[in-house]
């Protein structure tokens, strides 16, 4: 207790130098908390959006299907077993059939995935209802990214070319019935959605599907040969890994910032132990043990971060609260690495996050303050009093 009291006195007595370090530390604290909260917020949002748009309560794939390998598509389709058909009728599942195709916007050739989905499905937020509207061509919906890449607008026609089950090429006209806005690239980039019945007809794969998306509130526990359940652990694995990488990548910057702050505190400590030898000698003459003096100086250094926590909270709490309200607009063209990403991300603060950042900063500061203070334990009081050590 005495050490904390004395350290606080010394620190506040030291004035400007103290406040400078404290302010920098407080700033870093707020920045780190905010950055991690943004990533956590992104992570939460990404999971929510993926569930809402892409993966529902999990997916069931045909054996051999690999979304990263388009060549598997040729064989990844099979007839739906009766149990699936029942579930689809109950609204628990939505079948999706996928085939490779090409479109020719503005005379260019563009490889796409043509995805067939049940227009009356309620499992995904995809506005598939639009596929039921009457047109003089097959209606298709696309996401904003796809619209941008293909320069297609609502009402535009485009020729699509695909191969049917026997490998024979065929072509027809599609009309863009709707452009939807989704933050999930996996339902948007390089793909067009049409009614599954149309696609089955086009490819001559009646009653077949490539995969099934189950409803968020439905857990499939059955077993069907040729079909494999893919749960959240599997479907979210890549996204979680990438978010983790983002976190590590972001940390590098903060580690450097922290290192600079720690260097400043280390420097302050070394300097103050050198300049305050006489004081150290006086403490010893008055009956403090070397250990107590080391502790005093360590606490003094560590106090920088404790003051930073307290002082940082004053602007930090309203600032972080405000930032949580307005969110963070991702810079245009920011690299989302194929992750679902919204235009605005809302930081997700958690007690765990805030506490762990604080504890990390306090522990680091304490260690950095302790290292130079150890030198005191090798000082002879008689020399220290004279202030003549070098």
């Amino acid at each position, binding site marked *: 207790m005495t050490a904390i*009291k004395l350290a606080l006195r010394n620190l*506040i*007595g030291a004035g400007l130098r103290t406040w400078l370090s404290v302010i920098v530390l407080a700033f870093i604290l707020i920045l780190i908390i905010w950055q991690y909260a943004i990533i956590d917020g992104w992570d939460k949002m990404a999971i929510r959006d993926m569930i809402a748009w892409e993966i529902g309560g999990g997916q069931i794939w045909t054996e051999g299907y690999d979304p990263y390998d388009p060549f598997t598509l040729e064989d990844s389709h099979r007839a739906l077993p009766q149990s699936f058909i029942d579930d689809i009728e109950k609204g628990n599942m939505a079948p999706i059939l996928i085939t490779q195709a090409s479109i020719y916007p503005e005379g260019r050739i563009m490889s796409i995935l043509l995805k067939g989905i049940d227009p009356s499905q309620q499992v995904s937020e995809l506005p598939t209802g639009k596929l039921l509207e009457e047109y003089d061509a097959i209606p298709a919906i696309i996401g904003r990214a796809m619209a941008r890449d293909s320069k297609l607008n609502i009402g535009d026609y485009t020729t699509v070319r695909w191969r049917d089950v026997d490998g024979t090429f065929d072509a027809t006209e599609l009309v863009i019935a709707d452009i939807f806005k989704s933050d999930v690239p996996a339902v948007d980039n390089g793909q067009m959605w049409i009614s599954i019945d149309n696609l089955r007809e086009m490819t001559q794969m009646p009653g077949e599907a490539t995969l099934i998306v189950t409803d968020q509130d439905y857990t499939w526990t059955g077993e069907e040969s040729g079909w494999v359940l893919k749960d959240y652990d599997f479907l979210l694995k890549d996204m979680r890994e990438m978010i983790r990488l983002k976190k590590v990548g972001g940390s590098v910057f903060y580690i450097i910032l922290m290192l600079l702050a720690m260097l400043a505190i280390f420097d302050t400590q070394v300097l103050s132990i050198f300049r305050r030898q006489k*004081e150290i000698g*006086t403490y010893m003459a*008055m*009956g*403090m043990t*070397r250990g107590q003096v080391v502790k005093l100086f360590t606490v003094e250094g560590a106090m920088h971060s404790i003051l930073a926590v307290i002082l940082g909270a004053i602007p930090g709490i309203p600032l972080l609260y405000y930032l949580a309200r307005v969110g963070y607009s991702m810079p245009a063209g920011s690299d989302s690495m194929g992750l679902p990403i919204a235009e605005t991300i809302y930081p997700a603060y958690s007690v765990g996050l805030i506490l762990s950042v604080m504890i990390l900063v306090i522990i680091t500061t304490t260690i950095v303050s302790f290292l130079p203070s150890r030198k005191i334990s090798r000082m002879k009081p*008689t020399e220290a009093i004279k202030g003549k050590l070098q």
Partner: protein
Amino acid sequence: MNNSHIVITEGLVKHYPIGGGYFTALDGIDLQFGTGEFAGVVGPSGSGKTTLLNIIGSLDSPSEGKAVILDQSVGELSQKQAAHLRKKYLGFIFQTYNLLPVYTVFENVEFPLLLLNMSVSDRRKAVLDALEWVGLNDKIKSRPAQLSGGECQRVAIARAMVKKPRLVLADEPTANLDAANSHHILQTMEKLNKDLDTTFIFATHDDKVIKYLKRKITLEDGKVIKDEIT
């Protein structure tokens, strides 16, 4: 062991390593100090006064012989035991005052009591008493930088005396002070010596100090050459 002696040295020798060999700063000191003495170690520069006071103050240890302070043999104390001895029973006054610059007068004087874990109210009373002794009650909120040298040294005396130590060691307490301040300080210490029966040992070559001493021990080349009651 004679209990009326609070400091006893027997064949006290202090060597300092110098180059390959040794320099002998104290060369067989046999002295006793009784409770309530007002004594001084005098002698030319380099005669070993500071070295002797440091050993008596348990800040340094003897190379040979013994120094027994309040029945504790300095050479045999651990660092912690020596600190404890200083904390409870010894007060130091330095030539350069050694006040803590960021503390107020009050806080400087309070410091030794914080180490003794005294309660707030006891501390306050003791500090105000000590400042009263040195006549600085009106400056309790000042910081050392705002005080004159004489006032600083009076704060240092208050800090040394506040815990009512058994023994006060003062190394050249007047070296940075003018004549008037030197007299003032010595009168203060003389009075405290009488009122509280605290033992004072000075190291000095200042005639103004020497005039006040009741006992004068003269050192030369690390040896006692004279020990006289005045």
